[in-house]
């Protein structure tokens, strides 16, 4: 009988009787960690950025090299995110709505950019399109620059951010099944009507969620882009690369001013992400 009581789950619920001290202690510890590892660094970015006053901050941001870095980052995002939306939709659609051989291989391939180090993600493009790479001689012969130029940055960004949209959609579409699509077909819809009237409205919040994550990562990507960029000021520097250059030149105010821009974007992303998570959870 005593044994039965010992394994009774209701008999052992220590946290229900936790002394207040322990509860407050643990909460305090969690808060302290939060402040130390998240709030403090974030605050430091803004403090450093404005240390020399608003004018220095503004000057750092309107400097032509910074403006060009912002433009390049936005360009890379503006091309890689729509491409990943297309790839992601196509991949998720194929994987969740059809049966075919090699499906598992495809699902695994999509995850590769998550698995490899960003440096490798940059290097693969150098190996393919670099001067010593497979297509290097041909590209040089035709005067086309990919590595150490804007196309390379876009390629690397697209590669690194590839899984975000696809993974989000695969999970969502798998849970929704294919019955609504079948219903649409039986009711006489063609493939486009089925996609735009049934599938897309069902996945739109999940798709936006994937786009937000993808955009955040594309803006912040450092490693892969660093390998293919060549760090040519005013030409192939994205925002994160520009921060590094300014920092290495001891231009702390400038570096942190640009970093604060990225931080603001991160906070906006976070808010959007929360909102979309809440939206996707709606019936």
């Amino acid at each position, binding site marked *: 009988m005593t044994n039965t009581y010992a394994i009774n789950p209701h008999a052992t619920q220590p946290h229900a009787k936790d002394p207040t001290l322990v509860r407050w202690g643990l909460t305090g510890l969690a808060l302290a960690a939060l402040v130390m590892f998240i709030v403090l660094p974030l605050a430091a970015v803004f403090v450093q950025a404005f240390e020399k006053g608003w004018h220095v901050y503004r000057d750092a941001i309107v400097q032509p090299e910074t403006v060009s870095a912002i433009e390049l980052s936005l360009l890379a995002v503006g091309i890689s995110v729509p491409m990943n939306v297309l790839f992601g939709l196509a991949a998720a659609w194929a994987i969740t709505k059809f049966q075919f051989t090699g499906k598992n291989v495809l699902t695994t391939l999509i995850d590769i950019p998550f698995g490899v180090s960003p440096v490798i993600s940059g290097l693969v493009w150098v190996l393919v399109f670099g001067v010593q790479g497979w297509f290097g001689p041909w590209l040089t012969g035709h005067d086309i620059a990919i590595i150490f130029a804007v196309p390379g940055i876009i390629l690397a960004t697209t590669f690194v951010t590839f899984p975000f949209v696809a993974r989000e959609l695969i999970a969502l579409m798998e849970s929704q099944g294919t019955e609504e699509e*079948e219903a649409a077909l039986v009711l006489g819809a063609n493939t486009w009507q089925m996609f735009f009237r049934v599938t897309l409205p069902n996945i739109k919040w999940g798709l936006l969620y994937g786009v937000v994550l993808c955009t955040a990562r594309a803006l912040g990507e450092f490693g892969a882009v660093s390998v293919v960029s060549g760090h040519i000021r005013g030409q192939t520097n994205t925002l994160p690369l520009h921060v590094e250059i300014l920092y290495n030149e001891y231009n702390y105010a400038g570096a942190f001013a640009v970093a604060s821009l990225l931080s603001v974007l991160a906070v906006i992303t976070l808010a959007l992400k929360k909102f979309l998570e809440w939206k996707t959870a709606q019936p």
Partner: protein
Amino acid sequence: MSIEVQHVRKVFGTHEALKDVSLRIETGELMALLGPSGSGKTTLLRIIAGLELPDSGTVHLNNEDATRSTARDRRVGFVFQHYALFRHMTVFENIAFGLRVRPKSTRPSERDIRVRVLDLLKLIQLEWLGYRYPSQLSGGQRQRVALARALAVEPRVLLLDEPFGALDAKVRRELRQWLRRLHDDLHIASVFVTHDQEEALEVADRVAILSDGNIEQVGTPDHVYRHPANAFVEEFLRDVNPRRLAVE
């Protein structure tokens, strides 16, 4: 409009879901496909609808070969087991869907679509729920919306996959009487899948009993109940007490 299935065979991977199945359903007839789960009844229904292609054999609708035509071209009404209502559309838009996706040349005017949908809402006795979303309806209401949506395109045959499976006993009994009357008004061939012996014997004109990818027996409820063709049918119908047959 008749349905004729001849020598249909369907394999999924290593599992033979249907082994040489033949069945004919006449216009005006309500046929039940009855069998335990895994017997191939849903696969047969999906093959008639064009949602699956048979590995061999043919499907004729109205005596025309429809084996290679798509689900879209077959003009069948299909009610899915879990209704498959479009969750982001209102009840009204769900029912109107089949009319709205028609090519411009055959699409009814907005006014005609409205009239048709309102008629169907009246038929399923849910006139006041047109602007609700599927998630706001009860199981029985969803079921009726799914039926109205299938009927909106004036299907030549009506196919129902476990139409009452997810409903509680009382709603189920009401709905199956309602389906029976509806079918009699429509003069089309209807087929429904069920694993409930009582339901099949009570509602259908004829019953096809399936087991392990084969049709074991086809006949009127009275006939299969009183003269089971083999040990499986006898065993499968043994404990049933169909009220329709009991009074006869």
